[in-house]
């Protein structure tokens, strides 16, 4: 059997809450639109990331997919990003459609709103998964068969759910504490499941590209495609290499001047030079390889921070209180049948909001600060809670007791 790289890219943008003071609560129900002067406005960020990442990366990927028959890509794209692109950058959405239309791109299922609903409300989680599936079907004409949860948050319960829901595969972090003596470079299955398979991210190889590529203080800088493919080729006891990363790695997290696009362009032919090497989508990997073992994950793991747990989103009291506050409104909000109110509530479930409230300030804090539109996690908390108060204002207007 050939060795395969499974390149999976995750594209997502949240609806960031603007600076939203208590004085706007009850007066202005638009939490997400900034005025033109605010460089952290959602539309501005879409414009910026489209120009730096989505457009050039799609162009590059389409070129590679057309040039190399064995090159394949897996992609997840959140509902919030799709609606932002529909509204502000339809040409960029079209470039994703063009990418998928190459016939060599598999779309991965997830929640529409990039939420942590699985841990708070199974009913709400299932609605968001269905919403996402329907959106993907209507925009891309594809029905996803492999599931990833937000931030690759994964545990045994999620696997049991996905198994029952009929997914053929799941993605998770290939975290050492879970794998033990095993490595991430094989197909696994979750314990206590019938059919579903598990693909585990090779975090070292993935993060070499996603996090370290442009870091001049890294001992391996500069990372050439030759060097990188040599590492992979040297790897013993391996069948598959799960390179899972943010789509925005290309051009946004790693800027063009780091050489990231050239790296992408070069690594594909260098890997394929050996006729024993190929690329597969997530489903192809599941269909073509044998399960070697069962994986037990009683505690939730994610792909973030040095802890690989949910502490980036739920580690401090502000985050816990804020997410609890949002889900405490579930039945009241859903009971209104007001779709604009429900959608705003769902947009506030996006995990990014809680990430901005994170107070871990050491190694991981750097990354948090890079991704946050706010000066401090405290500002993030206040803006978010004010939006929450406004949801309650709107509930009250509808005669719901608050």
């Amino acid at each position, binding site marked *: 059997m050939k060795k395969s790289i499974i390149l999976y890219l995750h594209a997502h943008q949240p609806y960031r809450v603007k600076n939203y003071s208590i004085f706007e609560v009850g007066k202005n129900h638009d939490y997400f639109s900034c005025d033109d002067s605010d460089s952290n406005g959602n539309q501005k960020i879409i414009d910026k990331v489209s120009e730096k990442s989505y457009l050039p990366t799609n162009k590059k990927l389409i070129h590679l997919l057309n040039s190399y028959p064995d090159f394949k890509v897996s992609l997840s794209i959140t509902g919030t990003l799709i609606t932002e692109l529909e509204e502000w950058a339809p040409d960029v959405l079209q470039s994703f459609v063009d990418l998928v239309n190459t016939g060599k791109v598999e779309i991965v299922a997830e929640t529409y709103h990039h939420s942590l609903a699985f841990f708070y409300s199974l009913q709400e989680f299932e609605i968001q998964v269905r919403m996402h599936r329907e959106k993907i079907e209507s925009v891309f004409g594809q029905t996803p068969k492999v599931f990833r949860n937000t931030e690759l948050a994964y545990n045994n319960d999620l696997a049991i759910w996905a198994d029952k829901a009929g997914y053929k595969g799941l993605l998770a972090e290939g975290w050492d504490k879970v794998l033990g003596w095993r490595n991430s470079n094989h197909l696994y299955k979750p314990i206590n499941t019938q059919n579903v398979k598990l693909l585990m991210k090779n975090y070292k190889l993935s993060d070499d590209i996603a996090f370290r590529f442009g870091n001049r203080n890294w001992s391996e800088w500069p990372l050439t495609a030759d060097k990188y493919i040599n590492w992979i080729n040297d790897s013993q006891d391996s069948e598959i290499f799960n390179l899972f990363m943010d789509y925005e790695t290309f051009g946004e997290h790693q800027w063009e001047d780091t050489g990231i696009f050239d790296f992408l362009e070069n690594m594909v032919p260098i890997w394929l030079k050996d006729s024993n090497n190929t690329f597969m989508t997530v489903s192809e990997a599941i269909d073509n390889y044998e399960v070697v073992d069962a994986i037990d994950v009683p505690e939730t793991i994610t792909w973030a921070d040095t802890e690989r747990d949910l502490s980036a989103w739920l580690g401090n*009291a*502000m985050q816990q209180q804020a997410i609890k506050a949002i889900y405490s409104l579930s039945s009241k909000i859903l009971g209104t049948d007001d779709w604009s109110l429900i959608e705003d509530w769902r947009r506030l479930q996006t995990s990014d909001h809680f990430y901005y409230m994170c107070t871990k300030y050491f190694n991981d804090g750097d990354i948090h600060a890079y991704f946050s539109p706010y000066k401090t996690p405290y500002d993030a908390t206040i803006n978010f*809670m004010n939006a929450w*108060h406004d949801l309650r*204002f709107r509930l009250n207007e509808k005669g719901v007791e608050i």
Partner: protein
Amino acid sequence: MLGWELPPHNSGGLGVACFQLCKSLAKNNVDIDFVLPYKTDQENDFMKIHSTTPMHFSKLKNHLNAYDGMDYLSSHAVTSEQLNYEHFVAEKAKENEYDIIHAHDWLTFRAAMKAKQATNLPLIVHVHSIESDRSGGESGNPIIRDIERLGLMMADKVIAVSQMTKESISREYGIPLDKISVVHNSLDIDELGELDDENVYQYIELLKSSGYKIVTNVGRLTIQKNITGLLQAAKDVIEVLPKTIFLIVGDGDQYQELIALSAELGILPNVIFAGFQRGKKWRDAFSVADLFVMPSVSEPFGITPLEAINYGTPSLISYQSGVSEIYKNCLKVDFWDKNEMANKIIGFLRNDSLAKTMTEMATDEIMSMNWDKSAKATISEYDKHKKVLA
């Protein structure tokens, strides 16, 4: 008269108290040259304002916070502003024929001492707060303490804004009690802006109509103000009365800590942080509330409860405040007694007739307050010292 701030560029009560006192002194025929460290928009017809730098407040504001004692060690800006200020004051004092140097709080004390050395005029230092007040009962910045000690010793007379402050000055700096006179601050209700028909806190109005009660604090978020104590009491209040909202209006070095503390106490959804506000948003914060709480560790005077009742809201205040010496129709508690604080807040919020009576009585009480009495007491100190040295 030497001061560090005046409205509209005040960071707290100091500027307002200076302004009101001067206005009443002027009505009693005192001619005042008021020296400020910045250029101001303040316009008035009762005193002359001199600025020691041509720079407008807006250019300097980050450097001049009169209360930020711990920054003083590290901030070149404050020290260099003080040097400018000292030179200006010493020159000014020599040029003109003054009767008295009247200096407000430590930031002006070095200038005041220089001016006294240059002219041998009588010096009255007016203490609105001392370093231990501002540092929440801790000893604070030793350099500032030295400046305070020297100023208090060099002064011919010390005016304290409360009996409590008088006692702290004597206790902490060994100043004889008979060198210190108490002149309480007051309230000029004509100076306070009026409410209009629509409160700017619309959401909070809506909560009230849904049965919520509102407790507010308006002030700097620093250790002195003991908002941490208020939030701890709030937790107990919310357990008993879940429909209670705590509205915190202000900014300060504890801003972030207080947000985190609200979350840790599990009451984040019940605490609303509105940031620093002036004007209508400041006034409406008082009027939207059912109860104003001033839980300060140490409040040399503390005018806000009087401002609150002017906007129709009675108060719970700590005994450790100067205003508690003169304000009768309010609830009082020791700042450290969180249980009693919670108990009194709950008792008040549950008792509409108590709220109504307290509001009526307290409103009557402030109607009779004015600065004229404070001005007359100040003038009598001027007269004594003019004569002594003449």
